[in-house]
C-alpha cells in the first residue's frame, strides 16, 4: 500500500463501500461554463480570428467571448497542471477548457486580458496558437509511455515534430488547417486513419513465440482466437503444447500479445514508422477521406527521430507552397495528382503503395487520366 490511509479509515471505507454510488455519469457541464458562456449559450452569431490562438465569438446579445488557446503536452503532471490552474484563476475567473486536440483554452469576457494572458503563458514556455490555418496539437496515443503493442514512442515523436512545427502552430501560415496525428500501432487509437499527415508506428515482423513460458502464461485456445487474421495455430514444441504463427498471414497487429505476454511483437531493428497523408474528417468541401500511404518505412531513431521530422517538414513545405487557399492536404493532392505529390516531395513510389487489400480494386487507376 503506497497510500497513507489509516487502518481505521480503511475499515470505515470497507463498511460504506456497498453503498458507494455508481452510474452517476459526468457532473453536469453547466457548472463549469464561464458566466459569459452561460449567458450566451446557443446565441453565438459569428467568430473571428483576432490573431493566431485568439478567437472572438460574438453573441446576439452583443457580448463577446475571447478565447485564448495554448499548447499542452497532453501527458501532463499535476505539478504543471497546478500552474495552469493558477493562470486560469488569475486571468479567467478560474475557468478553463480543453479542446478535442488537447489544447488548453481560456474563455475571457474581458478583451483587455488577452495580451497579459498571452504574455504570461509565453513566460511559462507555453506557445499560444493552434487556431485556423495552423498546425494544431497532434492527436496521439501512448507509445512507450504506456502501451504494450507500440512500435514507437508517441510523446517523443510528437515533441520533435511540434518543435519543428512551432512556427506553424503559432502562425496562420498555411493554406488551411493541417491536422497531424500519431498512433503507435495498427490499432490506430486516435485519428491516424483520417489525418492530413499521419505518423504510424509499425511492426514489420510477426510476434516471437516464447515456447518455454507460453504454456504457463497463456491459454492456447484464447491465444489462437486472439488473432484477427487466423495466423496463429496450435502446435507442439519439445513435447509441450504451444502455438506457431503463419508468417504470411500475420499483419503485425499485436492483438496476440495483448492476450498472451509470451508473444511479444516488438522487434527493435524492424519496428519503425510509416507516414500517411491526405486524410480528413471534416465534411467541408470534399467528403471525409482516409489517409494514404506516403512513406512505408522510416527507422525508429530516438530521441530525435530526425527522419520523421524531416519527412513531415517536407510535406508541410511542399503543401504550403503549392496548395490553394482553403485546400486541405488531401484536396490539394487530389487536384494535382499523386504522381506530382511524389515528384514534389521526392518520396519514392514503391510496390508497397499499391493497395492489395479488400477494396484495392477501387484504388486502381482505371482510366487514362495520367500526369507526366
Amino acid at each position, binding site marked *: 500500500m503506497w497510500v497513507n490511509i489509516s487502518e481505521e479509515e480503511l475499515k470505515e*471505507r470497507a463498511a460504506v463501500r456497498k453503498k458507494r454510488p455508481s452510474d452517476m455519469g459526468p457532473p453536469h457541464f453547466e457548472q463549469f461554463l464561464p458566466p459569459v458562456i452561460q449567458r450566451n449559450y446557443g446565441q453565438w452569431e459569428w467568430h473571428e480570428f483576432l490573431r493566431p490562438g485568439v478567437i472572438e465569438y*460574438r453573441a446576439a446579445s452583443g457580448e463577446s467571448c475571447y478565447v485564448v488557446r495554448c499548447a499542452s503536452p497532453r501527458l501532463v503532471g499535476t*505539478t504543471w497542471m497546478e500552474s495552469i490552474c493558477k493562470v486560469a484563476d488569475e486571468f479567467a475567473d478560474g*475557468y478553463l477548457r480543453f479542446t478535442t486536440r488537447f489544447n488548453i483554452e481560456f474563455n475571457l469576457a474581458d478583451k483587455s486580458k488577452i495580451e497579459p494572458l498571452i504574455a504570461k503563458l509565453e513566460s511559462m*514556455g507555453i506557445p499560444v496558437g493552434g487556431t485556423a490555418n495552423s498546425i494544431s496539437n497532434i492527436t496521439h496515443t501512448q507509445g512507450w509511455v504506456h502501451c504494450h503493442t507500440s512500435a514507437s514512442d508517441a510523446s517523443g515523436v510528437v515533441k520533435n515534430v511540434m518543435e519543428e512545427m512551432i512556427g506553424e502552430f503559432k502562425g496562420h501560415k498555411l493554406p488551411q488547417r493541417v491536422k497531424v496525428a500519431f498512433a503507435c500501432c495498427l490499432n490506430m487509437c486516435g*485519428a491516424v486513419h483520417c489525418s492530413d499527415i499521419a505518423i504510424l508506428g509499425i511492426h514489420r515482423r510477426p510476434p516471437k513465440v516464447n515456447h518455454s513460458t507460453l504454456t504457463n502464461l497463456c491459454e492456447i485456445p484464447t491465444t489462437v482466437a486472439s488473432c484477427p487474421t487466423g495466423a496463429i495455430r496450435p502446435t507442439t514444441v519439445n513435447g509441450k503444447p504451444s502455438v506457431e504463427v503463419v508468417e504470411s498471414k500475420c499483419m503485425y*497487429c499485436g492483438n496476440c500479445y495483448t492476450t498472451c505476454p509470451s508473444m511479444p511483437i516488438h522487434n527493435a531493428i524492424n519496428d519503425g514508422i510509416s507516414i500517411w497523408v491526405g486524410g480528413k474528417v471534416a465534411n467541408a468541401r470534399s467528403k471525409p477521406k482516409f489517409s494514404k500511404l506516403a512513406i512505408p518505412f522510416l527507422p525508429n531513431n530516438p530521441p530525435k527521430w530526425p527522419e520523421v521530422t524531416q519527412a513531415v517538414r517536407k510535406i508541410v513545405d511542399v503543401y504550403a507552397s503549392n496548395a490553394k487557399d482553403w485546400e486541405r492536404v488531401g484536396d490539394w493532392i487530389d487536384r494535382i495528382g499523386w504522381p506530382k505529390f511524389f515528384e514534389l516531395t521526392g518520396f519514392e513510389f514503391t510496390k508497397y503503395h499499391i493497395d492489395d487489400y479488400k477494396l484495392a480494386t477501387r484504388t486502381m487507376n482505371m482510366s487514362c487520366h495520367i500526369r507526366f
Partner: protein
Amino acid sequence: MSDVKTPMLDELSGGQWPSFVDQIKQEAVHTPRYNNDMLKQLEISYSDNRGHWKHGGLVGVTGYGAGIIGRYTDIPNEVPGVAQFHTVRVIPPTGLYYTTEALRFLMGIWNKYGSGLMNLHGTTGDIIFLGTRTNHLELMWDELAAAGWDLGGSGSSNRTPSACLGKSRCDAACIDTMDLIHNITNHVMDELHRPAFPYKFKIKASGCPNDCVAANARSDLAIIGIWKDDIRINAAELKNYFAKHKDPKQGFDMVNHVALMCPSRCIEVDVNAETLNIRNGECVKCMHCINVMPKALHVGEDTGAVILMGAKAPIVEGALMGTVLVPFMKMDKDDDYQDFKDLLEKTWDYWEENGQNRERIGETIQRVGLAYFLQQLELEPNPNQINAPRDNPYIFYDEFFDEEEEAAG
C-alpha cells in the same frame, strides 16, 4: 529534479513545445515512487528501441467491468515502481470545460492514489489517470465516486461519449451537442460500465458537418448537426465581404475561395452586381462557404442531425467512416431525445443478437449489407445513404411472380 540518469530523454527536455519529459521529471520529484522508475523504463525503451509494457490479469473496481486498463512492466526487477501501472479512465464533463476547483480535486485524487501523471485527455475523450497499482483502485474509487465523478468505458462496452463544444460557444452549432451527449451518457450508464457487447461501441456528436469531434471517422454512432432549409445570408455583412474581395490587400477572393470551392458548384457569385445566389436544393451542407464567410452566411433554422453508423480504425476489415443511416433526425430536447434513443436501442438489439465476437457495428453492416441492415432497424431506404446506386447486376430480387399461382389464377 529526479536523479535518474536519462541522457536520451534529456534531449527532449525544454524547447519551444512543452516537454512531456519535463512533466514526468516534475512528477518524479513530486511522486517519485512511480515516476523514477517510469523515467528509467522510458530511457531503457529509448535505448533498446522497444516498449516494455505488457498486459496481465483483468483489473477493475467492484460493480464495474470497465474503466481500468491493467498494465505491467516486462522488466519488474529493474523498475519495480511501475511493476503495476494501470490506467484509470474518468468521464469528463461533456464539452471539456472545467473550473480550477474541479481540476484540483481530480489532481488531488491522483496525487494521492496514483502517479500524478495524466492525459488531458485520451483520444476518446476520457480523463486518463496514468499509472496506479491494483490495491489502490477501490480506495481511489471510494473518493472519486463520493465526489460525483464516474469511471469511463473500456473493453466491449459503450465507450465514453463525446461532443464538440457546440452551442456553448460555436456559431455553427445546429444541435446542442453538449446537452445531448450529457443526456446520452447518463442513458448508457449500464452499457458503459458493464461490457456486454460484441465489441466496443463509441458515440460522438458534432454540432455541424465540420465535425470538430471527428465523429464521422471515429465513432460507431455519429450524431452530426445539419439543417434542411436554406443557408441564411446576412446582406450587410455580405457587402463587407464583397468590399474585401475588391481590395487586393485583403487576400480574400469571393470567386476562388467561395464559389469555385463549393463541392456541388451551387453558388453563383457576381462580383460586379455584388450578388451571391445559392441553389440550396443542390447544396450538400458541407459548411465551406459558411466557414469562409462566418459573418455573412449561417446554417439554416430547420436543424437536426444526420445519424451515421460504423466508423472505426482499420483492425480488422479496414478502416470505415460512418455511413449515413438517417439523413435527418430532429434532436428533440423536450422529448428527451427519444427518437435517437429508440434507434440506439434497436441498433444494440440487432447487434447484440447478430454481431460476431470482436465485430464492430460497421463491420456487421458490411457483412449483412446496408439494405438488409436498414430493414432490420426499420429504417427507410433513402438515396442520401449512398454515393451512388449499385453498378453490378447482382440483384437478389425477393419480389417476383409465382408461376404456379399466375398459371392457376
